[in-house]
């Protein structure tokens, strides 16, 4: 996040004040054209190298996906799906670059309890700020795309930064820079939407009548978008959610519960305070002390008789 400062923040996790949000010049977006992607993993390599990440050398599990899932060191991952199109009878090898979608309405940020551990810049990038991260894993639950990963070593959450460090100095993300076929392009969100339209037209002309863009409105749109040949069936692409949105449970937890809980507890405490102030003391009277003595004697003697 070098170069981006507090005044570039649009939202900050677990913070009750709103940032000034004045530098709202334009939003950026990365467009991943799945139909141009050859699954070469140059983006994965570029991500590992630019971010200086040290992923483990794994094993082969009978698929091309390596590593087998996103990890704290693998912020982007090619996911390969072999799909036999029932309409054409043709095999399609659907290859999707998975990673943070940089939602306009980020579930991770909503779920995060640590002030400033997750920020959203005015350009739309959602970034994790490690020094503020407490490793609770709430972001994992907040995310509709199952992206953040918590390191077993330092218990911090990690995910794609959209190379906010590069973007802040006018560079495209490392993956976009490395992509040999131009399947990953980067620019303003509007430019990417316009670019996508051209691609969709081309795909439709090649028989993909449901080609379209994936910019899901359920999360307010995303700053990483896909061009899909089968935009009507995003789940084909390694379970890309059909209509992602922040889980209702998370909304309830981080919405009503948070405020209602505070209110209820506060009210209870206030009631106790008021009661303590105004209610008659519940205290032992001298008469009761005397009666107690009497009763003790009585019972004691009964006890002895028994």
């Amino acid at each position, binding site marked *: 996040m070098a170069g981006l400062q507090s005044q570039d923040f649009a939202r900050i996790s*677990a913070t*009750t004040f709103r940032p000034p949000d004045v530098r709202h010049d334009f939003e950026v977006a990365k467009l991943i054209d799945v139909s141009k992607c050859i699954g070469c993993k140059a983006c994965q390599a570029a991500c590992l190298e630019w971010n200086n990440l040290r992923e483990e050398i794994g094993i082969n599990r009978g698929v091309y996906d390596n590593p087998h899932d996103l990890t704290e060191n693998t912020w982007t991952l090619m996911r390969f799906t072999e799909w036999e199109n029932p309409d054409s009878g043709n095999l399609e090898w659907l290859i999707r670059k998975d990673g943070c979608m940089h939602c306009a309405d980020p579930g991770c940020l909503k779920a995060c*309890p*640590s*002030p400033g*551990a997750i920020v959203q810049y005015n350009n739309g990038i959602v970034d994790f700020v490690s020094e*503020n*991260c*407490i*490793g*609770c*894993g*709430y972001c*994992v*639950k907040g995310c509709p795309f*199952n992206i953040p990963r*918590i390191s077993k070593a330092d*218990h911090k959450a990690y995910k794609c930064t959209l190379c906010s460090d590069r973007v802040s100095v006018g560079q495209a993300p490392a993956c976009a820079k490395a992509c040999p076929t131009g399947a990953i392009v980067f620019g303003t969100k509007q430019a990417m939407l316009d670019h996508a339209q051209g691609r969709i037209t081309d795909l439709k002309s090649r028989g993909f009548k449901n080609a379209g863009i994936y910019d899901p409105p359920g999360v307010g749109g995303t700053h990483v978008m896909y061009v899909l040949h089968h935009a009507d069936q995003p789940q084909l692409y390694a379970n890309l959610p059909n209509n992602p949105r922040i*889980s209702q*449970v*998370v909304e*309830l*937890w981080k919405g009503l*519960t*948070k405020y*209602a*809980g*505070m209110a*209820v*507890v506060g009210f*209870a*405490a206030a009631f*106790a305070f008021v*009661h*303590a102030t105004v*209610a*008659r*003391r*519940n*205290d*032992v*009277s*001298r008469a*009761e*002390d*005397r*009666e*107690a*003595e*009497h*009763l*003790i*004697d*009585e*019972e*004691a003697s*009964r*006890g*002895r008789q*028994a």
Partner: protein
Amino acid sequence: MAVRREEERTTVDRYPGRVRVNHWVTAISLILLTLSGAALFHPSLFFLSSLFGGGSNTRALHPWIGVVLLASFAILFVQMVRYNFWTKVDTQWMHHIGEVMSGREENLPEIGKYNGAQKIVFWLMTLLILVLFGTGIVIWYEYFGASFTIEQQRLGHIVHALAAIAMLLVVIVHIYAGFYVRGTISAMTEGKVTGGWAFRHHRLWLRQEAREGVIDERQTPPRRHSPGPAE
């Protein structure tokens, strides 16, 4: 356990040391859990995480304190459960709860060691601690993050939060009751209450205790029908 005649007053043993220790371990755990939980619950309370050495430590400690709470409360439960079975008298007593809150207990039925409200607190705490611990495991990401689905963890979070709120309410009731009903706190500090307190609030229990016998701890010989300790 016994009723003791002291120089200035008569006391009734309510809690032996082992129960008091357990109670306070439980109580301190609950307070720490409340503080650390609150830090993670609402941004305006995040500052409380400083008490635990910052957010990461708070995140790491909170579940372990929960384990301490569970263990401590489990012992407490064993110690107390036999006094906490519900009786018809408790139901009667509960009908007069408004009078208790107004400081009038003249018309209440005689009550054993615990009244209905205390039993409710006991059972609510038992239930809530189980729920909190169960959901706490589900959301203990460091060790169990891979054992539950994200959807299960989401549910875990909201149930944990709701249970914690409920727990806080119970704790507030419990603490306030101890404070409002004067003379109660000594039960957990010194382990004993005054005879008058026992007479007023738990007369049946006082009868039972007195029937067990009275220990005279006075230097001077006792006078029959002597006035109360205040004299």
